[in-house]
């Protein structure tokens, strides 16, 4: 039914979704913007690639190592930088993303600018889908937990949160860790999906795209980021006409400005989908279609 081309698109969407969710956690729920998340994807990707290609480890081990490496680097970098103010942190992440890419370009062991070929395959759509579902489940739970609520509190008003006794730094670090872990996992999956890695695949344009997707979806909402990714990742493939790609970026830029000005909370705002909401929506449809009296309640 579905040919490998579209399956490939869906797989890529599923992979980038993880990175977007990572940025979402960091930005949406802790209020920190990162301009360099593609760098963490790169770390995850390359570590996993090296493990599988040169260490002869199985794919799963590679993925785990990649994720772990990105998390560790994220925490190591986060520890000093998270103490900085918002826009300083932003510039620092910009620098880090670029620095990671430049180091990879210069390092012949990992292929340098030429990249690393034949890093190992084995990523299928069902695998990515499974990972996505598990991660979303875990994140949703996290956000409802005390820890999640603390993160949201920090986003809303840091000083007030501190006054409530929340250890700001620890939670920021936690959010950073989770966010880098997801980015690393996404990078590792991407590498093995493409069977090839090159530092240019993780440049600042990619970091910006991740951020844009989160902003558009609404950085207080997991659902928002998911919808955003589902639409925006396949979009270049759907729009294969002439200068469409540049226009796409123009529109993104414009949308970001408009969203920030008019609805900074993005598409979904702070809301998530709820079962009640969906059922209410459908029952309203049903009511109008068949003109029956509703049984009661929504």
């Amino acid at each position, binding site marked *: 039914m579905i040919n490998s*081309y579209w399956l490939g698109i869906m797989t890529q969407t599923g992979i980038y979704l993880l990175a977007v969710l990572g940025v979402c956690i960091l930005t949406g729920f802790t209020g920190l913007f990162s301009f360099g998340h593609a760098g963490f994807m790169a770390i995850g990707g390359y570590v996993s690639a090296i493990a599988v290609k040169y260490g002869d480890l199985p794919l799963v081990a590679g993925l785990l190592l990649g994720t772990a490496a990105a998390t560790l680097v994220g925490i190591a970098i986060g520890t000093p930088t998270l103490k900085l103010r918002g826009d300083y942190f932003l510039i620092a992440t910009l620098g880090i993303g670029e620095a990671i890419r430049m180091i990879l370009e210069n390092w012949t062991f990992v292929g340098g600018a030429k990249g690393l*070929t034949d890093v190992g395959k084995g990523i299928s759509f069902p695998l990515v889908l499974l990972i996505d579902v598990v991660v979303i489940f875990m994140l949703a739970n996290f956000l409802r937990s005390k820890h999640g609520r603390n993160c949201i509190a920090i986003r809303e008003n840091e000083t007030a949160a501190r006054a409530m006794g929340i250890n700001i730094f620890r939670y920021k670090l936690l959010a950073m860790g989770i966010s880098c872990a997801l980015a690393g996992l996404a990078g590792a999956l991407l590498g093995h999906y493409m069977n090839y890695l090159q530092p240019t695949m993780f440049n600042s344009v990619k970091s910006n795209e991740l951020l844009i997707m989160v902003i558009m979806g609404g950085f207080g909402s997991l659902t928002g980021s998911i919808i955003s990714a589902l639409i925006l990742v396949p979009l270049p493939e759907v729009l294969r006409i002439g200068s469409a790609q540049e226009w796409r970026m123009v529109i993104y830029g414009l949308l970001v400005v408009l969203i920030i000005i008019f609805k900074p909370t993005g598409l979904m705002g702070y809301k998530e989908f709820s079962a009640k909401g969906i059922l209410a929506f459908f029952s309203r449809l049903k009511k109008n279609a068949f003109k029956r009296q509703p049984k009661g309640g929504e």
Partner: protein
Amino acid sequence: MKKVIALLTAAVLSVSLLAGCNSDSADSGTIRIGFVGPLTGDSQPWGEAQLNEIKLCVENLNNNGGVLGKEVELFYYDNRADNIESANAAKRLIQEDGVCAILGPNASGAANAMASVCDENSVPMIATNATNPSVTVDDDGNVRPYVFRVCLTDTQFGESIASYAYSEMGLRNVAILYEVGSDYSMGLEQSFTASFESLGGTILTTEGYKTDDVDFRAQLSAIKELNPDAIFLPALYKQIVLATNQARELGEDAIFLGTDSWFSDDVLAAAAASVEGAVFTAAIDTESEELADIKAEYLDAYGEEIDTMGTTGYYGYDAFMVLIAAIEKAGSDDPTAIRDALEGITDVEGCIGPLSLDADTHNTQRVVAITTVENGAFKTISLYGGSK
């Protein structure tokens, strides 16, 4: 969270439903071929030249009866010089459009990305301008069964200019300025260094710059200190313009050496005085009489010269010719048969002479044109048979 999972599944299913119906690829009426190249972005001039030339070739061929009695249909996609887009474009060509072979791409990174796709789907690709050796031969020395190319490799280019510089020009001390983020530039730097040193020359220093850099004075000042006979600059047209102008401004008047990326009117337009006397290997001798027809046709059809920005248009022609020859030899448009025919194919009528693909490496041998800039214009001064 259950609702979130529900949402995700719903979205996925709807995407798959929308995408479910793929076009019927088993159309026996035409021979379908594909092209992937940069049609937007910095590399656009090259991709465009190739695509335009290939379109002309398709038209000509169809007017003359096509191949195997059928017309050729060309499908093409822009890869924006991005690796992931290249892989997607390749998949789309194979899965959606049902092509039997792909021409392109124009860059080694993209070619590496597409190689996996082509190998997996058993559809051959003929890279037009991907010069990194690893495109056709992987790190373990195994040739990639479905990847071929009609251009020379970085190794061959580097060797030819190094040889010429040492033997014919008598240069002994050369400094290199290369782009660190570019596999093209790094590959050339490595092969030039290896060749030049093995001949007995000395590389005084190797300075690098980052991909978006525009100021090279620090590196050029360091190079000037060492007083080189020549400076090897395997860069793209913008950096060539800037680096050469800045070098001359600093009072550095060594000769510049380069490779095929130097062959661009933009370089002459913006840096004619600075590049006067530079020597580089153009991929093809553009002054050759044999190219006259191709040039005239292209000018006629598109209103501009095929080689204003480089020689890639000619590669498009060659790639197409090789493919058609292979289809004829295979007697069918079955991708695997075409692949077998491509391996070790010989004496294809290329744009400037017979073309053969080596059975072991899927690479080719070509004669390069040692070109110089004389009085603000390009001039071929020698032909150099590629080694290995």
